[in-house]
């Protein structure tokens, strides 16, 4: 099927684009939502991703991509308002509630999201997931941080090295 160029269909329904995950699942979304990704934005502006073409995303699996798109669809209207200066307090509270729910997820999913947000350069999502990880780190000792993030126990060499740094950062324990 011939892909209609971007000029067509702009007046009626919102323009759609197709994204293809690493495991070959096709996702059709509004161009406005997909354009929250800086990486995709240029391609989409050039008319890419329409019709049968689709934009391949070899770095993002379908489970992660569907999660990412859930975020983009929710945030696209506010983003279209230029950071939503007109948004009501209710709208903002709803987005905040959504965001909190959104990152209430398994660590492996969180990791995939961080990588996807980074690769696709979705600014809001990047800061949302980074803040989530930051919150996981706060208020914990180095060993607790290691365990929280799933690091293996330190090797004796590493332990010795960290002990040596204790002097430098001793104040962090008061």
């Amino acid at each position, binding site marked *: 099927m011939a892909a209609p160029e971007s000029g067509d269909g702009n007046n009626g329904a919102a323009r759609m684009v197709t994204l293809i995950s690493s495991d070959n699942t096709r996702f059709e979304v509004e161009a406005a939502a997909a354009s929250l990704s800086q990486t995709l934005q240029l391609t989409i502006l050039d008319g890419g991703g329409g019709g049968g073409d689709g934009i391949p995303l070899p770095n993002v699996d379908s489970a992660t991509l569907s999660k990412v798109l859930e975020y983009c669809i929710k945030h696209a209207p506010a983003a279209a308002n230029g950071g939503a200066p007109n948004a009501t307090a209710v709208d903002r509270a709803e987005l905040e509630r959504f965001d909190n729910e959104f990152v209430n997820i398994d660590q*492996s999913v969180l990791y995939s999201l961080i990588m996807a947000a980074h690769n696709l350069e979705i600014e809001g999502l990047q800061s949302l997931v980074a803040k989530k990880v930051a919150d996981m780190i706060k208020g914990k000792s180095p060993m607790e941080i290691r365990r929280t993030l799933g690091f293996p126990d330190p090797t004796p060499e590493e332990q010795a090295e960290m002990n040596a*740094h204790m*002097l430098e950062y001793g104040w962090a324990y008061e």
Partner: protein
Amino acid sequence: MGPEMEPPGMDLDEEEEWACGDDAEDQFDRLPDAVLLDVFNRIGDVKALGRCALVSRRFHDLVPLVDSVFVRVDCVIPDDVPQPASPQRLAAAALAAAAAAPAPALAPVATHAPRGGRGGALAHIARILLGGISRPIQALGQILSPAAAAVSRRSPPQPASPPAPAADVSHHSPSEVLRAFKELRRLHIELPTGELGIDDGVLLKWKADFGSTLGSCVILGASSVSSKPPLSPATPPEAAAADSSAAPPDSNRDSEESGALPESLYTNGGLKLRVVWTISSLIAASARHYLLQPIIANHATLDSLNLTDADGQGVLTMDKKQLQELRVRPVSASGSSHRTLMPALSMRLYYAAHVELPGGTLLKGATLVAIRPSEDALREDGGAGAAGSAANSWISNAFEEPYRSAAKVLLKRTPYCLEMNSF
């Protein structure tokens, strides 16, 4: 760290070649540096960052690159170093001047005027104020150390050899704690309390910005804050706030209607009290500013610096341009005290017997003081006819809601003007 296991269930492994951490064992250690640094920049709290630096070699290398740090000062030790009497004298002098000039007028204040303070509110505030000046100095001099600091301050000088780690964590200044951070751009330090001891129910907030010296200061005060019985929902909060000054039956003096200071304020000590608030706030601000010098000197990359307190009393800010100014033109101390010399100041004091805040809170004896160096005030007023809401935005925007609304209401009043000499 040897390569051990692949994270199960993820097929992201082949996606990118990370700058480092390729041999790491787990997902989070394989995050690119830029992503980890983004995470660290959102931690803020300096102690959490310090502990983070001890997680792994890679974390230890990355944490010093963090550009945004928040230092919460844990404890403040009262200083018993006798302070020069000047603050008390200043307050007294300003009061004498205010009393001598009951009409809106220029009232030059001599810094060495004889003591003219009379009991009551003045004595009370001035006493607390003296303690207040010294506290932030201590706070920034030795912090992050409950208990131990208070003891060690009295004890003989520490031995030159580095003490054992356990003893080493006794007290640390922000300068010391921040030394590791070489790329600091945004720094926020929070004192545990505001310096100004104020009675229950009294509201006093200030916001000041500094370069080499004071750029501007806005003070909002009220002699009492009370929550009003629920409003009739018919009145929108904004309108209620705007009307409230005229509405309450007990504030129906003519002078009140016209926005000038009510006559009683000159005679009942109300004005004096407000001048004391003003000077106390300015002294607290200039003492805070003075303390920041070593930190600014150590961190050439800084472009935003805030010094606040957990009580929400005072906010000191310095932006990029102001930090640059201070680096070029060093701070002058006020005499032998540990605070920045204030330039000659031009003040406008706005008063309303009642101001209702959007949340329904009622401020009684609400006072707004807008302060700028006389030099700047002259230049701007002499230039293109200042005034107008745009020219006053620095005043109304100094505070967050609901106090912003109060400031806006007060700004509509006729100001009482006061000039102060450098102090």
